[in-house]
Structures are given as C-alpha cells and as structure tokens.
C-alpha cells in the first residue's frame, strides 16, 4: 500500500509471468547469457526474448553488460530476494487478517 509496496508490486508483476520465470531460471543456471543463446533454449523468437528481458531489466531484475558487439544478461539476485520478501510480506498480512477475522468471530457475541 506504500510507495515501497508499489515498487515491489512492479517487481512481482515482472516475475509472475511463466516465460520470464523461465528466463530467470536459465540465467541463474548459466550465470549469464545473450538473448540469442536464451532464444535457443526457449520456444520464443529472439525478439520475444528481448522484450521480456527489457521488462526484467526495467524492474531491475537483470543487468546487461556490453562486451564489443555482445550483450550479456545476468540476474540481480538482490532484487530477486526483494521480490520474494514482498511475497512473504503479503502472505503474512493475509495471515494476520484471517487471524483477526477468526478472533472476532469466536470471541464476540
């Protein structure tokens, strides 16, 4: 609900997509990779990969490093951790709300 929450929502929106999860998985496994290499491992065009990488990059979840004509992508694990923590936070808030509903239902006339 706060500014921080909104930023985390963007992180989550970037991650909660099956294709981008696959990209992140591949990058985490390989360490780093080019869009062309990623396109070999996924049933998506190189163009499609580039668009998904752009979303991940804008969310700060991947970083691009240019060496000569090659651009290699790596995962920013600190940002990935931030997204995971956001999910844990949302879960624990719902737990607290459900506990409050339970308390009201069971203890008040």
């Amino acid at each position, binding site marked *: *609900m*706060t500014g921080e*929450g*909104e930023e985390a*929502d*963007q992180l*989550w*929106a970037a*991650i*909660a*997509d*099956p*294709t981008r*999860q*696959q990209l*992140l*998985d591949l990058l985490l496994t390989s360490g780093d990779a080019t869009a062309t290499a990623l396109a070999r491992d996924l*049933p*998506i*065009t190189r*163009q*499609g990969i580039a*668009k998904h990488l752009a*979303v991940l990059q804008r969310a700060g979840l991947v970083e691009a490093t240019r060496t000569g004509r090659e651009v290699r992508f790596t995962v920013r694990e600190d940002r990935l951790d931030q*997204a*995971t923590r956001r*999910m844990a936070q*949302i*879960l624990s808030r*719902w*737990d607290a*709300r*459900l*506990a*409050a*509903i*339970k308390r*009201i*239902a*069971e203890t008040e006339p």
Partner: protein
Amino acid sequence: MVPDRISREVVIDAPPDRVWAIVTDPRHVARWFSDEAEIDLRPGGAMVLTWQGHGTYRGRVEAVDPPRRFAFRWLRREDNEPGDGTSTLVEFVLAAEGSGTRLRVVESGFQRLAWPEEDKARYAGENADGWVHELNQLRDYAARLGGAPESS
C-alpha cells in the same frame, strides 16, 4: 518462483453466516482490514477503503454469494478506477466444516499489475502473432515449474 496468486486459509469455530458477516460488513472490515470501510455489497458495488497514514483506495465488488463467496477488485494505487491491470482480485470462499467454517482467501492478478500501457499492447500483440503455436509448450513448462501453486 513467484506465483500470480496466493492463497491462505483458516478454520474458524463459528458458523458460515457469522463469518460471512465479519468478512463483508464494513463495520467489521474496518477492524480486520482497513481503518475505515464503505462497501456497497452487490456485484459492481463500490468500495472505499482507507488506511490512516497510507490513504484511500477504491475497490469494486465482483461477487456476492452469501454465505459462500465474496470477491472484490482491490486497487493498488490511490484514486484510480478498479481495472484489470491496476488492481488485484481478492476472493473469500467459505465452507461449513463441522460446526465451524473453513475460510480461504485468494489474491490474484499480480502478474498484470504495473505494466506501462505500451508494454501491455506489445505483449498482447506478441502473444497473438507469434506465440500461438508455442502456447501448449509454455503451458506444459509452466505446469512442470509448478505454475501457480496454492500456498496453503
């Protein structure tokens, strides 16, 4: 990794009618959810939720099926219309269990949040043009990854 929906549940030692009232009556909602709540309890009805120190967020009632299901769209930003890409969907499902109630909450739609319009249009075009043949493979892959696991 990060699912598009989350789900939690609790078993309450009170009948569904009682739990329904607490989940949907704004006087109760203002105690377990927001600090102030207005709810027009019918499909399409407006919700106004205020958190002191955070502001006022609007919502829209989506489903009212007492005492079984209550769903609403919950806006993630202040002063916006509750649409598909700007809100999450919160659903409460109540089921009688013995003399009590099993209450489940599902919040979904995180994936579509916070996308600049331009991206959404491009993404939709991409889906329609290029991905149709691959959809089954993607679906299988997502299923193998665990797709959208229920966390309870």
